[in-house]
């Protein structure tokens, strides 16, 4: 069994057929996907720009990052679910698209980074961390999610 055959069976399966055969289904799922991504992007920007001392300077950074994580997790779950449905409808096209794999790589790295590096680091007292560490973590997070968003849009144009 190859990766391509998995993608082919996904597109030809009941989910792929459901998404493809009904005109408004893909568009509706994509709308929810984009709304979830907007929420995720908002959570990422609010917490990372706070860590970079750009916004919400009068609120402790730990308060911002802790609250943003709840929205981040919720948005990520919705994004992954709707993303799976979207890919099912155009699985073979995605398989052959370079930017789809860029997006998947950045997404996997972003999730790993968020839950294994960023969250454990920021769960403690931020004042005990070096400012350069906080800024690097924020920049890395923004960079990763920007690549996820940009390559996601790029799939549609290539």
């Amino acid at each position, binding site marked *: 069994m190859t990766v391509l055959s998995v993608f082919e069976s996904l597109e030809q399966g009941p989910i792929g057929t459901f998404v493809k055969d009904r005109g408004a289904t893909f568009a509706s799922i994509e709308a929810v996907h984009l709304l979830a991504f907007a929420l995720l992007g908002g959570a990422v920007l609010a917490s990372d720009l706070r860590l970079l001392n750009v916004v919400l300077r009068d609120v402790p950074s730990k308060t911002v990052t802790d609250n943003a994580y709840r929205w981040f997790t919720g948005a990520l779950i919705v994004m992954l679910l709707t993303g799976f449905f979207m890919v099912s409808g155009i699985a073979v096209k995605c398989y052959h698209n370079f930017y789809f794999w860029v997006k998947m790589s950045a997404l996997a790295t972003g999730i790993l980074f968020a839950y294994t590096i960023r969250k454990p680091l920021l769960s*403690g007292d931020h004042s005990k961390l070096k400012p350069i*560490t906080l800024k690097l973590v924020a*920049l*890395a997070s923004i960079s*990763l999610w920007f690549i996820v968003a940009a390559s996601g849009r790029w799939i549609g144009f290539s």
Partner: protein
Amino acid sequence: MAEQNKTSKREIVSAVIAGAIVLTSVIYWITQIEGVMEMIKLANGG
């Protein structure tokens, strides 16, 4: 003390990984800049 060392090690690892991600992102966008310019031209009807 042990806790302090553990935290310090985590911070160093986090900073190194974050730095590597930022560097990789910059390299990625440098290699993609030609494609980005082409997309901007297309978006502007070029």
